[in-house]
């Protein structure tokens, strides 16, 4: 514990990772990624106040949820996500969907963050619409079903922009 703290304080370069999703299954899936970022500063962003306790002591920021049927709310949610990005200034943005995560991936270039879209495991037969759109801007797009993506190459320079990759699942 102490050793870990020393390493962290010694290194001014600890990555700040913003994890964003809506509620329900998206949030359940997102939280299962937490150990991947144990060496990072994790900041969570989602839509329900009770989620704060579920990720404590990590920082939690709440944004309004929205879906594509309510345009005004969608716009408000997008603005709140931009505000979160400007406040947190993450190095990496990770999302399992849906709307708030899509906005975070779309606007991450404002703070020069690299982005990972992990399409929900609920999309077992085709990528979600948000996922197909996110693939246009995300640094890395992953599906959780091997049938829907190509195996992720270990060499990052072998990755193609816009391509959908498979590298395991949350379950």
């Amino acid at each position, binding site marked *: 514990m102490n050793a870990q703290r020393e390493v962290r304080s010694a290194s001014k370069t600890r*990555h700040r*990772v913003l994890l964003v999703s809506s*509620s*329900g*299954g*998206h*949030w*359940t*899936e997102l939280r*299962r*990624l*937490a*150990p*991947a*970022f144990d*060496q*990072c500063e994790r900041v969570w962003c989602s839509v*329900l106040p*009770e*989620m704060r306790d*579920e990720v404590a002591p990590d920082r939690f920021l709440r944004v309004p949820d929205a879906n594509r049927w309510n345009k005004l709310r969608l716009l408000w949610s997008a603005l709140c996500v931009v505000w979160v990005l400007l406040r947190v200034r993450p*190095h*990496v943005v*990770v999302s399992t969907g849906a709307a708030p995560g899509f906005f975070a991936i779309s606007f991450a270039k404002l703070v*020069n*963050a*690299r982005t*990972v879209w*992990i399409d*929900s*495991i*609920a*999309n*077992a*037969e*085709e990528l*979600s619409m948000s996922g197909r759109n996110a693939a246009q801007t995300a*640094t*890395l797009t*992953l599906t*959780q*079903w091997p049938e829907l993506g190509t195996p*992720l190459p*270990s060499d*990052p320079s072998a990755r193609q922009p816009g391509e959908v990759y498979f*590298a*395991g*699942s*949350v*379950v």
Partner: protein
Amino acid sequence: MIFVTVGSQLAFDRMTQAVLAWARARQRTDLFFQTGASSVDCSGFAASAMLSAQEIRARFDEATVVVAHAGTGTIIECMLRGTPIIVLPRSAKLQETRNDHQFGTARRFQSRQGVFVAWNEEELAALLDRADSLVGGASIAPHADEQLLSALRRFVAEKRAGR
């Protein structure tokens, strides 16, 4: 206790009503219904439209069988506990959700131990008749598989863009 849950977003009256009809026919009362915003009459049974995160955890903990829509959050909660789950996928045609992704989810998860798929209300009743003998799978880990975690660790460690 059979925990019947529609998840956090929309009601799912077709499922709620099918389970109620089964319980009344079999004179079972050991059920708890989480129905969402619904006008279905659950009198005679423990029921609630919505549950807090804390209450929902308690219901999952005490359930011997869960009946639910084919939502990944609910399926994962059951797999964590090794609790058998019966899922009825929501249909877009019946306006129970906006597309048929739950059919895909159900098809993929039915190969997992402890996940039982009812493709319609009749199959749901038949599975409920077996409820007391359904067996869950082994409890899964509380985190994603190691392949995905290490792919994400590698991604973070790659050079930062322009910083």
